[in-house]
Structures are given as structure tokens and as C-alpha cells.
């Protein structure tokens, strides 16, 4: 599976999971774009707020090594390679708090890499 198709699959899975709960207010809205940078050993920003039913495109980049971006409960698991933009579009279906972690070991301090995603109603 190519990186492009993998990302597309993630987007489709999330969109399918979210469609029944999507809020009508945002149904036709263009995806919000959120840029996230990964570097040893943090994400920048380390906290983002999304809204239930509003599509969002995450643009993930790395400034140094290959990192991971994983939210197990949402079945999101991708790599962020230096020099390229990893993009995924998701539509949050459930309000709550989610933690994304780097799950591609990148050295001492790897365990500190996390990003909090707050999904509001």
C-alpha cells in the first residue's frame, strides 16, 4: 500500500465512522487545516481543539527524524517522514479528549511525544 493510499484509507474510515453523528452545521464546510510539526521530542502545537462534525485536515511534518502519529482508539496510525507532508482528513464524531502519540521510536525522550486533541460539541 502506498503512503498516499494509506492516508486515504484512514480518511475514509474516519469519515465513515463519523458520518452518522456529523453535525449538519458543518456538513458542507471546507475542511479546517491544522498544521502539526513533529520534532524530537514534542509535537508543535501540543494541544488542538476540534469540533464535532467539522472536517479537519491535519498536515503533519517532521523537522528531524521519522516520527509516528497514533490514536489507537480512532484507528489512526501513520508515519511522519522528514521532507514530506503527511496529510489526513478526519471528521470528529465524538466529543472528548484524545491523545495522539509518536509510535515510531525516535530516541530517548520518545515517550514524551504526545498531542492532546480536544473535540468539542
Amino acid at each position, binding site marked *: 500500500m502506498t503512503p498516499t493510499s494509506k492516508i486515504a484509507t484512514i480518511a475514509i474510515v474516519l469519515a465513515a465512522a463519523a458520518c452518522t453523528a456529523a453535525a449538519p452545521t458543518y456538513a458542507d464546510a471546507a475542511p479546517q487545516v491544522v498544521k502539526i510539526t513533529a520534532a524530537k521530542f514534542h509535537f508543535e502545537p501540543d494541544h488542538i481543539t476540534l469540533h464535532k462534525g467539522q472536517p479537519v485536515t491535519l498536515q503533519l511534518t517532521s523537522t528531524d527524524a521519522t516520527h509516528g502519529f497514533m490514536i489507537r482508539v480512532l484507528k489512526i496510525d501513520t508515519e511522519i517522514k522528514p521532507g514530506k507532508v503527511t496529510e489526513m482528513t478526519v471528521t470528529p464524531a465524538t466529543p472528548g479528549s484524545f491523545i495522539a502519540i509518536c*509510535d515510531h*521510536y525516535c530516541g530517548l525522550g520518545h515517550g514524551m511525544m*504526545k498531542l492532546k486533541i480536544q473535540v468539542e460539541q
Partner: protein
Amino acid sequence: MSLGIGVVYQFAPMLARRAHAGAIEDFFKKANGESPQTFTFAQFSDPHVGFQGPPDPLGTKAFEHAVDLINRAPQRPDFVLFTGDLTHDAESRDVHTQRMQLFKTIAERIHTPAIHTVPGENDAALDGGVLYREHFGDSHYSFDHKGVHFVALDNVSRAHPEVGADQLAWMKADIARFPATTPIVVFTHRPLFDLKPEWEWFTADGDDVMNALSPYENVTILYGHIHRQNFALRGNVKHYAARSLIFAFNDPATNAEKKQMPFDQGQPFNGLGIRLLADNATDPAVTLEVTDVELTTQEFGGVSGIQQLTKPNEALKGSSANDAD
């Protein structure tokens, strides 16, 4: 601080009392000439050799204390398993090599005929396991011992927390030759189920591994990584996590953030213990009986003893004490 010194297992297959026991006994006799017998082995985990300094000044002392303890045990273990993070990671290949050599120096003091290891991410994730294999050989393999089949799985060397398709295919072929009633022990570093994914306490393709093991009726998983004692029953498979030999993590059930437990200068081995497992002789339905024994620091009694214990280890000068997981 909750430091464990490892786990001691006594394995008594008691096959004579079990259905299909004759088939298993015949199988092992034909395969390797060994008939099932009672035996003991030990599991040590996560010594992180090379980790020393604030907030934890113990260095290798808990590891060395564990070695001394197992050497004083009345029954010598048939072998010792190490379930990963033998060393603390290092950017420098030379430094990491020194740590692997120091690990081997300490581990080889154990009075046991054999030591079997698997890597943790600190040992193998940055270089794909190259340095680990130079020192310890293959990172996945299997062996039989007195009626039990042991499988070493590597779920760290691919950087991503997974076993991977190739190793999974190898494992399927490896266990395919055994009857479904064969006792199987899988030892690995990360948990093979979703224990706490947001703390990276999981294996991405752990479900695939467990599905491959599902036809087998007597499977035990031993792992490390989480630096705390844990037991989980998933279906009929028992998953046991061993304590670390360097520091403990906090309880995921009551904490949102993963943190090292603070070092207690007055009780550097507080919570340190061993877990004994024995086959239940009175109930054939119970494979292993678990007993936890808490240790004390009486060998290091008094202020001077504690000071000696927490004195920096000369062999680890210049080592880092960054995040470890």
C-alpha cells in the same frame, strides 16, 4: 518507589493429569528426547543498564541485587529470561556497546545454565536491532524445555511497535508442528494487547499474534516494558508483566500521565519483590499458581547502607537519565 527484582516461575506441566498428556509427552520425546518434567525459571526485565542519575541514582544496583538474590535461591533456575530493555538507549554506538557489555557482565553472574533475551525498544529500535544481534544473536527464536515450547518474539526492532508480517509468518510455522494442548510460553517486550495505548503499552499487530495462538489451549505471555507487575486474562491466555530493575511507572488505572515513580532515598527498594509461579498440583484446571514475595533492603540496613546503595556506580559515569520507557 516500587522496584521489582524479577519473576521466578516454577513450571510443573503435570501432564499426566491432563487430557492429551500422552500425546504431548510422546511428541516431545520424539522431537527432542525430553519428557515433561517440573522445572523452574526466572524472568528479569528492564534493567536499563546505563540509566543513572537524577531522579534515580540506583544504576545497576537493583539488577545486581536481583542477581545476588536468585543466586541465593534454594533451587537454581533452569534458565533466565530477560524481557527487553536490557540497556538504556544511547545515541553513540560506542556508549551503547559498553552498556550491552556491562549488561552481559552482570547477567553472566547468574548461576544458571542458560540466559535467553529479547530486545526492548531501548536496545534495538533506533538501529533496527543491528547492535543487539551482534551481542545477543537473533531477536526472535524458539526452543523446547521439558515439555514446554518457548517462543521469543521481537516487537521493538521495527521502530513501530509491531511484530511484523515476516516474524508472524515464522511464528505460525514454528508452532504449527505442536499439538493444540502443548504448553506454550511466549516472551516479548511490549504487551500483546491494548493495555494502555496512549502510554504506548500495546503492540500494533498484537491481535494477529493472539489470533495465531488462539488454537492452543495453554498459552502464557511474559513481557516487560511497563515497569510494573500486571496480570491480565484474555480468553484463556494469561499475560504477565514483570517489574523493572531500574524504576517503576505509576498506575495507569489512576493516572492520566505516565510518570516514573519518585525515588525514595529512605526506601530505595520499596515494593521490590519476586513472583513465584507454580503448577497447581491439586487443580489440573489451573496451569500456574502465583505467589508474590516482597523483598526488603535489610542487606543495606542503616544510613551507611542506604548511602552505599545510592552511591553512583563508577562503571556508569557519564550516563544519561533521560526519559525511559
